[in-house]
Each structure stands twice: as structure tokens, then as C-alpha cells.
């Protein structure tokens, strides 16, 4: 049915490896391969997103952005990356060294665990649990611990305040993220990502579930922006008041890890939004227009996935560079007094829609 099925590719790789090695060695080798692939992917996405952010920021501020290094400044982030690698790693006196060094890794590992569950194309995902959505929410909730530990172990008041803000913020907004995803789980009847995507064969969920799905989508975008500590919710690192928030004391590659972690989290939430609401790698299908669907099927699923993700990332950057930063009490009021009740009502509405077959 689908032109591109990557499960053949992955299974052929598996077969060729297991034909020369014992099962144990096969597992180890496959784990290493998957790890390397994701590492490369991380580096690539990190570079592209940093560049994109600077360009888009410049666009919104009527500037040009980086232009000097390479054509249109394309090499700028690579140069920045090399600069970061060469910087000195400053050790803070009186800091808790173990936790100070551990914190960036917790952030990165949490995002690493989450990205494994995302389906890039049919058969192209590392983990396909029957509880995929829950799993992603679970592992991404660990990331905030890295921020909290970083803030505390730096022995710096700006870091501490930033970390506490971030803790309060992430713990609160996780609820909204989870509930808005659950709204779609109600519609899909499954938490498995591959099944969620397959179910959107006849139309993306944002169209199928119309009103409640649209509300859920908006809430998801707002709360996932907050959960990833991005503007206008970037209180944890509000430059004007907290220097750089929880990573004030970090330098060099450790800072780069936090930086990368932030962009990867943005990529992950965007790709989840793309998968759950916009059909993931599923091409745009309109029931009845078979020839149109055929043409759409020729575009590779990977392209579909990346372009949907890119659009959502663009929206998130647009939000960041447009709205002013909130205050912490406004932020928590927004979540607990508005988003959460709306979400709960919305999930009931969706349940009603599903029960009465009001969806398409």
C-alpha cells in the first residue's frame, strides 16, 4: 500500500548482521549502530536548528542574521560549535562537582530516550511500544531534573532561582502536554505511535477530530513551548533578570550540551505534534480523491515528516520572537486556571465525540 516501507531495510540489516554473529553480539552491534545514527542525527538537527533560529530571529527583527561564514552564513553554527569545543571548562569553587557534571547528561539522556520512540517513516523507528505516547511523556519528564540539579549545584543564586522557576513551570505544564495528547489518544484508541500514524491514513487527526482536536493542538503548542523552556515562557533563563538562568555557570561543551538539549527538546515536541496531530509521515490523503492520494504517496514519508515538524518548529520560533516574556505568577495562573480546566473539559468533549461518532 505504501511505496516506502523501511521495515524491509531494517530487517535486512538485522538479517545480514545476525547471519555472521551470535544473537548476543547482534544485539550489541545493533545497539551501537542505532546509537551512532542518533548521535549523528542529533548533531545534524542541532546545527540546523541553531542556524534556523538565528535566521528566523533575524527575519522577525528585520535583520539579515549570520551572513559572513559561508554562503548566507551557512557555516556559522559549525564555527560556533568549534569555538565552544575549544573553550575552557570552568570549575566553580564550592560547587557540588559530581552533580554539576552530571546535570547536562541527564538533560541529554532524557531527550535521547524520548527521540527513540518517534516514527520517522514506516518501519523507521527505534522503539515502538504499545504505550508510546505515555513513554515519551515519562522519559521527557526526567529532563527537568537535570535543570534542577544544574541550578542547585552551581552554588549561584541566579542559577538556583532559574532552576526553581523551571521546575515549577515544567511540572505544571507537563499536565497540559499529557492531557492534550490524551485527547488524541481517546480519538485514536491507541497509544502506539505506529498505530496512531496508520489511523491517520484517511485524514489527519486535527481534521478528523475537528473542534476538540484543534483545541488540543493549540494547548499542546502552548504548553510544549513552556515545557521546553522556550520564549515567551523562558523564565528559567531570562537573560535580563537572571543572566542565563540555570546554566549561568556552565561553559564550553557542558553549556553546549544544555543548548543542544533545549533544541532537541523542541524538535521532539514538534515531531510529536506532527505525529499525533498532523499525521506524522502519513501523506495528505483526502477520501474520494484517489489520484490525488496517489500523487501524495509518491512524496517520501521522511519528507512529509520533516516538513511537518519544520512547520511546527517555525511556529514555535515565531511565538518566541513575537511575544514578550511572562511573569512567573502569570505563567502558573495560565496553566492552572485556564489551560488545565479547558483541557479537562476538552477531553470530555472528545470522549463525547468519539462515543457519538461525531468525528470523521
Amino acid at each position: 500500500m505504501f511505496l516506502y516501507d523501511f521495515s524491509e531495510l531494517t530487517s535486512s540489516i538485522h538479517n545480514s548482521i545476525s547471519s555472521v554473529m551470535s544473537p548476543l553480539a547482534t544485539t550489541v552491534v545493533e545497539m551501537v549502530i542505532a546509537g551512532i545514527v542518533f548521535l549523528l542525527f542529533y548533531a545534524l538537527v542541532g546545527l540546523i536548528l541553531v542556524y534556523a533560529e538565528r535566521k528566523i530571529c533575524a527575519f522577525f527583527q528585520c535583520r539579515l542574521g549570520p551572513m559572513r561564514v559561508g554562503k548566507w552564513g551557512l557555516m556559522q553554527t559549525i564555527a560556533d560549535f568549534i569555538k565552544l569545543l575549544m573553550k575552557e571548562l570552568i570549575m566553580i569553587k564550592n560547587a557540588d562537582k559530581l552533580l554539576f557534571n552530571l546535570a547536562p547528561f541527564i538533560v541529554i539522556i532524557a531527550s535521547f530516550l524520548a527521540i527513540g520512540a518517534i516514527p520517522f517513516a514506516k518501519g523507521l523507528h527505534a522503539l515502538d511500544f504499545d504505550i508510546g505516547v505515555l513513554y515519551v511523556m515519562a522519559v521527557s519528564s526526567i529532563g527537568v531534573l537535570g535543570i534542577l540539579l544544574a541550578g542547585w549545584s552551581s552554588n549561584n543564586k541566579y542559577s538556583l532561582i532559574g532552576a526553581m522557576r523551571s521546575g515549577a513551570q515544567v511540572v505544571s505544564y507537563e499536565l497540559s502536554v499529557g492531557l492534550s495528547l490524551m485527547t488524541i489518544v481517546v480519538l485514536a484508541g491507541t497509544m502506539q505511535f505506529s498505530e496512531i500514524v496508520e489511523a491517520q491514513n484517511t485524514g489527519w487527526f486535527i481534521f478528523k477530530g475537528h473542534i476538540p482536536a484543534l483545541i488540543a493542538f493549540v494547548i499542546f503548542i502552548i504548553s510544549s513551548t513552556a515545557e521546553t523552556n522556550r520564549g515567551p515562557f523562558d523564565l528559567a533563563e531570562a537573560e535580563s533578570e537572571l543572566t542565563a538562568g540555570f546554566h549561568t555557570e556552565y561553559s564550553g561543551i557542558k553549556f553546549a550540551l544544555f543548548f543542544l538539549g533545549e533544541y532537541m527538546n523542541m524538535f521532539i515536541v514538534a515531531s510529536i505534534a506532527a505525529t499525533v496531530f498532523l499525521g506524522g509521515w502519513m501523506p495528505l490523503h483526502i477520501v474520494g480523491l484517489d489520484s490525488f492520494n496517489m500523487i501524495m504517496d509518491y512524496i517520501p514519508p521522511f519528507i512529509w515528516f520533516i516538513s511537518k515538524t519544520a512547520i511546527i518548529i517555525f511556529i514555535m520560533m515565531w511565538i518566541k520572537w513575537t511575544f514578550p516574556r511572562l511573569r512567573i505568577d502569570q505563567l502558573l495562573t495560565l496553566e492552572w486556571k485556564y489551560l488545565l480546566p479547558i483541557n479537562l473539559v476538552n477531553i470530555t468533549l472528545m470522549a463525547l465525540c468519539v462515543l457519538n461518532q461525531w468525528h470523521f
Partner: protein
Amino acid sequence: MNIIIFYILAAVILIFSVLSVTSRRILRAATYLLFVLIATAGFYFLMEVNFLASVQLMLYAGGITVLIVFSILLTSNIDHKFEKSEIKKNIFSVLLVALGAGVSLSVLLNKTFNVKSNTEPVHVKKFGYALLNYGENGFVLPFEVISLLLLAAMIAAIMIAKKR
């Protein structure tokens, strides 16, 4: 392969639980506890009860540890260290732990368990149905009573925090 992972996880749990209770810095103790909880989730993944594993990660690692760390952030200073406990106390508690572990181990190791082979991984839908089932082997009553407990806990927390 599973056996190797099992022993790795078990070693992680053992080492970090000991570290967690012996550490003299409170936030480090909480961090070690985090590793213990994550490794426990690893056990569940190993047994292919993914739902339980995710809930373990979400509630314990992502929820409870975050709350613990958060409260430490609010109350504790980075320079603070626990006092070194007396040697007499240490010896006594080690003996006590050894005694307890000895008794439990001797009982558990002598027990022959009925091993169920080829158990099917439990699909998440089963959990959903069991949670809302009010017949035999259903859990709707505990599910609802826990919500009562949580309500009470919230009200209790508010009551303690209320200003005069």
C-alpha cells in the same frame, strides 16, 4: 542477554541504594535515589510490562524525585552536610541490615517459585479495562478511593501551608 542486563540493573540498584542512604549531601542522596528508581523501571521493561515501566518513570523518576529535589532546593543550602554518624551506630545498623537481609534471603532462596513460562506481554488495553472494571479482579474501587486520598493529601498540604 536479558540475564546480563538483569545483573547490571540489580548492581545499579544495590550500589545506588547504599550510596543514597550513606551520602552526606542531601541532593546527592536524592540523585542516587533517582538512579535506583530508573533502574527499577528497567526491570519492568525487561519483563515487558511497558505500562508499569512508564508509570514508574513518570511518577517516581519524573514526579516524586522532582518534588523531592524541588523541596531540597527550597530548604537546603549547598554547604550543608549531614554529620558523620558515630561508628557505634554504623556498626549497629550494618549488623541489623545484615540480620534482616539474612533472614529474608534465607527464606526467599529456600522458596521454590512456580515459574510461568512464555507469558504474553500484557497489552496496555488490559490495564485500562481492569482499572474501570467493578467485578472480580477489577480495580475501580481502589482507583476511586486513591483519588479521595489524594484530595485529602492536597487539602492537608494546603492546611499546613495556610497562613494565620
